[in-house]
């Protein structure tokens, strides 16, 4: 019925996740997913370590606990699709295709970083990969992502070959005005976009129920006739399949939708947050739902690999992350004389190139 957008919670108890046989993906695919999840996990643990060793500065938000969501979402995207993320973006950047070395180098602020050391942790970007950026202003990415979908619509026909846009946002971000204005425009103009609400139950220290008057976030599209689906964010397969369906709707029907992935934040909001505000129960629940060992055991149970093979994958990933750190560490800092290289795309006269303390102009 036109006026009632469909809303569905597709989760099943963790125990009842589909077996490897049921999902029917090849062993190679499942192994790759596991490897990618481990890569995100190891990269983030190392990033935390490097932050503690002051190799990384500023804010640093990790995907720990979000690995299955990262892998599920990224495997649903095509090369031709566009991705907008939040500041919690390392894992997405890597699985979308950035070299972990360049991502780590960005964290180190080096000239070999994905944006030359200008953005840091919150601002991974790669135009070729259509990874359109991490964004540090809560909700700031939603209008531009909606605009990317507008551009796709402006240029191309709807259909199975159409490009589409995926816009990530956190649970707490559904309470900001930009979310409302953007979803209304997407619903009104029928834009090819999927808004993925990565629900890790917390916005910094605030639980969803204390932030959103409608805590079933996948239902919040009701005000725009935008359908919503809630999925188990700890299951990469479930996330992938739900994302594929939502992207298909975007490509073919130009129907924007909400996909809410339910997972847990295993650590603090950022590396410097001890998260004292979390109860032991909360922490235990989060740890109990750690998606990495869960997926590992599922694959072992399904006979995709055995513990030893998993160990081999793990070690290979570790050395890859070690290489990334070495690359970042040995890369040069950007030079101060490059300070004014990136102010304007189109040069114009009289743009200021003054360093602090320079005379405003030299008159003769």
């Amino acid at each position: 019925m036109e006026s009632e957008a469909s809303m569905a919670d597709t989760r099943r108890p963790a125990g009842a996740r589909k077996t490897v046989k049921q999902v029917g993906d090849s062993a190679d695919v499942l192994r790759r997913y596991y490897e990618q999840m481990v890569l995100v996990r190891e990269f983030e643990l190392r990033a935390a370590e490097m932050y503690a060793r002051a190799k990384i500065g500023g804010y640093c938000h990790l995907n720990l606990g979000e690995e299955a969501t990262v892998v599920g979402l990224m495997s649903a995207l095509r090369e031709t699709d566009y991705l907008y993320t939040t500041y919690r973006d390392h894992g997405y950047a890597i699985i979308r295709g950035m070299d972990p070395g360049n991502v780590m180098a960005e964290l180190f602020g080096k000239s070999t970083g994905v944006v030359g050391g200008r953005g840091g942790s919150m601002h991974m970007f790669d135009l070729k990969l259509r990874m359109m950026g991490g964004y540090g202003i809560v909700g700031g990415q939603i209008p531009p992502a909606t605009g990317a979908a507008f551009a796709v619509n402006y240029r191309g026909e709807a259909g199975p070959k159409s490009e589409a846009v995926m816009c990530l946002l956190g649970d707490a971000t559904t309470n900001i005005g930009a979310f409302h204005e953007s979803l209304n425009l997407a619903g009104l103009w029928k834009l090819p976009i999927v808004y993925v609400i990565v629900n890790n139950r917390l916005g910094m220290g605030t639980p969803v129920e204390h932030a959103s008057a409608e805590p079933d976030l996948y239902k919040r599209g009701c005000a725009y006739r935008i359908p919503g689906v809630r999925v188990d964010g700890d299951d990469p397969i479930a996330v992938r399949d739900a994302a594929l369906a939502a992207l298909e709707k975007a490509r073919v029907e130009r129907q924007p939708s909400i996909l809410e992935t339910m997972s847990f934040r295993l650590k603090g909001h950022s590396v410097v947050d001890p998260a004292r505000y979390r109860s032991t129960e909360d922490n235990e629940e989060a740890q109990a739902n750690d998606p990495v060992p869960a997926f590992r055991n599922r694959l072992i149970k399904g006979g995709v690999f055995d513990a030893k093979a998993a160990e081999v994958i793990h070690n290979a990933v570790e050395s890859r992350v070690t290489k990334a750190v070495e690359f970042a560490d040995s890369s040069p800092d950007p030079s101060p004389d490059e300070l004014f290289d990136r102010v304007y795309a189109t040069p114009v006269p009289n743009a200021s190139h003054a360093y602090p303390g320079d005379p405003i102009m030299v008159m003769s």
Partner: protein
Amino acid sequence: MTEMTYRQALNDTLRAELTRDENVYLIGEEIGVFEGSYKITAGLLKEFGPRRVVDTPISEEGFTGVAIGSAMLGLRPVVEIMTLNFSLIAIDQIVNHASKMYGMFGGQVRVPMVIRTPGGSGQQLAATHSQNLEVWYAHIPGLKVVAPSNPADAKALLTAAIRDDDPVLFLENLALYSLKGEVPDGEQVGEIGRAAVAREGKDLTVVSYSRGVVTALEVAEQLAEEGISIEVIDLRSLRPLDRETFCESVKKTSRAVIFEDDMLSFGIGAEISATLGEAVFDWLDAPVRRVAAAEVPLPYSKPLERAAMPDATSLTKVIRETLDASAFGGSHHV
């Protein structure tokens, strides 16, 4: 050359750019069916259709951000924000996003967009609808800000802004829309970042921009009858700021008065005066004075609004005081 209003110059330029480049599109509130609150986009929806002329809901933050995202993918949106006052709702997208992306993302992505919006006071629109906040935008790296004062510059600078690969805030003014002037025919691409000598003179320099230039030229005309020769500098571009042009002028005249519609403290004139104080210190014969608006939420009542706004009378008064302060005895003395 054709004589036309500032409004017509804008309308013609938008039409020309829409025709020239398929990636150019217009987006904003009431620009299509309603033909624009101030009729700048009149006729364009009929001519180019709803794909190129996009009416939006009242969602300044949303549609400005949509324009940004579409520009990241190579479209060239021209956003109309109904008045500068409403840009406050979109300012996070303009300042924290559009202006930062090229630099923060390492030069990988360009954001070729124009935000057209009229500022201006004096229409009895009261405190919230009469603001001149261009100085806020002029302070922001990554952004370009132009404020043409006449139809010819409106055409040339809007063309340049649309073809520029950076976000450009294009400041219009409610009081300028019906102003007439000669506009060169055919394609005219102005240069962002250059001021103009709107009138040559040798006794004193008046620096202004947008609507203020019109008043400054009137005052210069009147004072000329008394043998006082005023040079008028039209900044045209607020960011980048063409310091050289107005500094050279003041080196010649040795006296400067700044005329601006915004409020005095921390306004546009402060930067002009500070620049002069540093760069042409040795050439100045008198303190640089600013004629700007009184610092109150602008009242609706006409007599109160008038009392709060700078005009030809206050400008003339300050010019005379500045000349007196430097023992000026008329052009023949110089």
